[in-house]
């Protein structure tokens, strides 16, 4: 299990990285490498060039400004989990980071890498979708911002152009409630189901809800019918939404669980989220 041959470059600027990507259509970006290096070892990926972002300055770091939590693409899961800033303004995000794999992987894996990898069983894509996050990207043609809804196209597929680099991830911090939870069979396993939900609570009613599911479905996905069914309801009055969530998504089967099972445990995750909403509503 040794990687095939590739050429390696570690550029010093994003622009250089983009042009290296543009120069070789089989080039791939290397961030933390926690997903890419095993794929190389298994020879399931065989890029001709690896473009390593480790020397590009200003790709790490966490800021909170004007209601936006901005995470540099090369920020590790571990840094996010342990960031006093994140723990202060959005503790649910720090907790979500701690759900990813094991500490020994979180010290190296990055949010930008995980988002670009778009694994259907990864946490960050679900968080981005539920929070209506954005990624800032730069390509040879310039920079743009892509909303999570426009970014994830399917399992391991994004709308990034081949020469584009994610430079940061932005999550709005606007007083909406955030909930991220998952069912892992063992500590650190890929989630059998991951659920991320954001919403407003006013007068005991849930509004403006965004619900995203990963792990249980073929790719990370919103659940618009469940969202609609929950709109304006009290957390306890959520049977329609629970039914909708079970019905509207296309759950996947594999050796770790059938589609029916994944539907059932996604429902229990949703119920937990609603119970938590009920508790928050009671505290308010």
């Amino acid at each position, binding site marked *: *299990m040794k*990687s*095939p041959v590739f050429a390696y470059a570690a550029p010093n600027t994003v622009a250089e990285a983009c042009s290296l990507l543009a120069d070789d259509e089989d080039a791939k970006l290397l961030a933390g490498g926690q997903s890419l290096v095993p794929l190389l070892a*298994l020879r399931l990926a065989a890029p001709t060039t690896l473009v390593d972002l480790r020397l590009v300055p200003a790709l790490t770091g966490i800021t909170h400004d004007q209601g936006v939590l901005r995470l540099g693409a090369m920020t590790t899961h571990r840094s996010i989990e342990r960031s006093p800033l994140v723990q202060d303004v959005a503790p649910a995000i720090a907790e979500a980071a701690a759900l990813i794999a094991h500490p020994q992987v979180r010290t190296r894996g990055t949010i930008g890498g995980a988002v670009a990898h778009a694994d259907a069983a990864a946490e960050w894509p679900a968080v981005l979708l539920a929070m209506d996050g954005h990624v800032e990207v730069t390509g040879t043609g310039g920079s743009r911002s892509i909303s999570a809804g426009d970014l994830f196209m399917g399992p391991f597929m994004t709308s990034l152009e081949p020469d584009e680099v994610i430079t940061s991830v932005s999550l709005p911090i606007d007083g909406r409630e955030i909930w991220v939870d998952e069912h892992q*069979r*063992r*500590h650190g396993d890929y989630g059998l189901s991951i659920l991320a939900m954001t919403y407003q609570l006013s007068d005991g009613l849930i509004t403006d809800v965004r619900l995203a599911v990963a792990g249980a479905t073929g790719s990370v996905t919103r659940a618009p019918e469940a969202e609609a069914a929950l709109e304006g309801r009290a957390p306890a009055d959520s049977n329609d939404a629970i039914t909708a969530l079970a019905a509207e998504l296309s759950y996947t089967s594999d050796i770790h*669980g059938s589609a029916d*099972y994944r539907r059932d445990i996604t429902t229990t995750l949703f119920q937990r989220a609603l119970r938590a909403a009920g508790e928050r509503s009671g505290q308010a």
Partner: protein
Amino acid sequence: MSFPHSQSPSIAARSIGARVPRGDDPRLLTGRGQYLADIVLPGELHACFVRSSAAHARITRVTTDEARALDGVVAVWTGEDAAKFCEGIVGELEVEGCFATTMPLLARDIVRYVGEPVAVVVAESRYVAEDGCDLVDVDYEPLEPVLHPRSALEGGPSANEELPDNVALRGGKVLGDVEGAFNDAARVIEATFHSGRLSAGPMETRGVIASYDWTSRRLRLWTGSQMPHYIKYCLTAYLGFPENECEVLTPDTGGGFGQKAHIFPEEMLLPLLARELDRPVKWVEDRRENLMTATHAHEQFIDIAYAFDSDARATGVRIRATGDGGAYHQPPWSMGVEPWCTAMVTPTGVYDIPAADLTYEAAATNKTPIGAYRGVGYMAGTLVRECLMDDAARAFKLSPFDIRRRSVVREFPWTNPQGIVYDEGSWLQTIDELERMVDYPAFLERQAALRAEGRFIGLGLSVFVESSGESTAMGKAHDLGGIYHDTATVKMEPNGSVTVTIGLTTQGQGHRTTMAQVVADSLGVPLEAITVRAAESTTYGWGSGTVGSRGAVIAGGAVLRASNVIRTKLVALAASMLEADPADIDLVDGAAVVLGVPGSSVSIIDLATAVYFDQSAWPADFDPTLEATLAYDPARPIFSNGGHAMIVEVAPETGFVTVEKVFSVEDCGTVINPDIVEGQIRGGVVQGIGAALLERLVYDDSGQLVTTTLLDYHMPSMDFSPPFEIHHLETPSSHTPGGIKGMGESGLIAAPAAVLNAVNDALSHTGTVLHDIPITPEQVLRALRG
């Protein structure tokens, strides 16, 4: 049978029984262990295998030109190249109804399982060897894969044309009045079980290094094998290397658990490559290869029924055990030992069941060969027996302890219907002790209280008897062929220090420490003065393999016999020097002392020095050889016993099962080192929890193995580790050194049944009873939801 090498001298336990820390540990803890991959020979080449991507196919073409042309590639061999030297390795089990197969070193014409080696690329580095493998092109013409053992035995295509009807093994016996027992039964409790396909999953994968010197015809082969002497024998038998010039070396080994107790094509191929290429060749298996090809284990389909009389006593058993054997017999254990042992040995267990109808069979299938893994045959057999005991307890409305007490054997020696004699045991006491440890009434109370809160806990029980100290007598008792004996050498140096060489390799069981404890008590020397070499080279001694829970008994017996020769000489010399009767001399605390005469003593160091340098101190006719090599093979089969009780909780949200607590009772006779025995229990039990809740090798409908990485083959991690309470019973064997019995497999033998029973107890309000392992969260959730 009575031969001198079956007699073991007596020994006074002093160091034996103590929690002696392992001498190996500082070396291993500081990174100084030398495992196979850590060994680098000058000029070594690296081998990597091209493996079949098809379950069953005709090879129409193998193109190697591009690989050969790659810079750094030294050689590429295909099946034709290997067959020039060796047709293959022959496997079968020496029991009635077994049909042999020949496994080629590299597949020729036909591939029979995914992962079967088809070609080997040898290169200057492992990286380049893998590049070369990518350039080897194999064309396959698909053949129908045979994937289901029971339908395979009914006909249809053959998995391996050597076995046209797919029958690799078939036989059985009817003992006692089975018909009568079932006709008269008050109840028949029966079920069909599936015990899943497992990987032993040692942390260190397999690996081989071969080095050949044409000037001396000397072959050296490093392999982390549990059976190095057998491998050496095969080097001569299959490949024709002169036995006197073959040396098999066993470095530190990262676990074996039975997987490394076979010979593999890779081990036979590398010596040939080293000889023909005239350079050392190394192969280190990667994890994907390990999961795909390093023998699978334990998978069986089992139909079993027990007849019970109106007193809830078991009166008869019927069993049909079918192994899903894979494409070949992997020598020496083969696909046969698993279902054979389950059917022929385990159905009666610790119970007095007078009638038994026993059928075993193994089907050839287009899957990886099945081999031995800790508790081979016993685990599945204990699973089905103990699970039906709990089913019977529910049917008779008895506690799991009471149902077992109705049938448990209480008097020894006891002969079961298969004719196997059990000399002693604490079979009833095990059940009683577990009941006490669990505090059953308190458990029932807690279970009811939690149920009222919507939480579901369950208690599962599993008791076992385990054949241990695998020996010639054991084989004979079970109508199984094979001769087993092992030697040990004990040598005392002029300064009184001792070097011990045993014929058994160690894979982490701590033999170097436990054997030192035996020698310390035999010779009265301190542990620091003893060095034990555990078959690091086949140059010394003979061993039949670290298998069948035999290490402590067999090595212990050989060591004690050899040590006793030295002891006798030291005693004779001391008697002469102290002018005492040899019968009054004891060796203790570094000295020979005259019993009853305080102050009359001579140090062992002085004795050893006198043997080497002072003829004047010798008694008449003294032979100064302070080195002895002796064999050992116990006269009778040795059985240990015990049981586990487990409390589990099932989660209503997910169906996840958590093991809350494990209670273990172990009776392995005299305990040499409780730390090591308890380590074996905990490790085996957690493997059993893995087998019951997590681990499963899965094939798809085309015969592709789906679980080829550790992301898909789930082994227990630390969060699956329960707390343990362990209780030792000690019923010494009267036939082994100091009464020692083996126990290396007990944890895995009995734990899966305890887990399954505990889950079924947790689900008892639902009416669902599960009979397959691994138990999936989905099955549990379905049961809870009704």
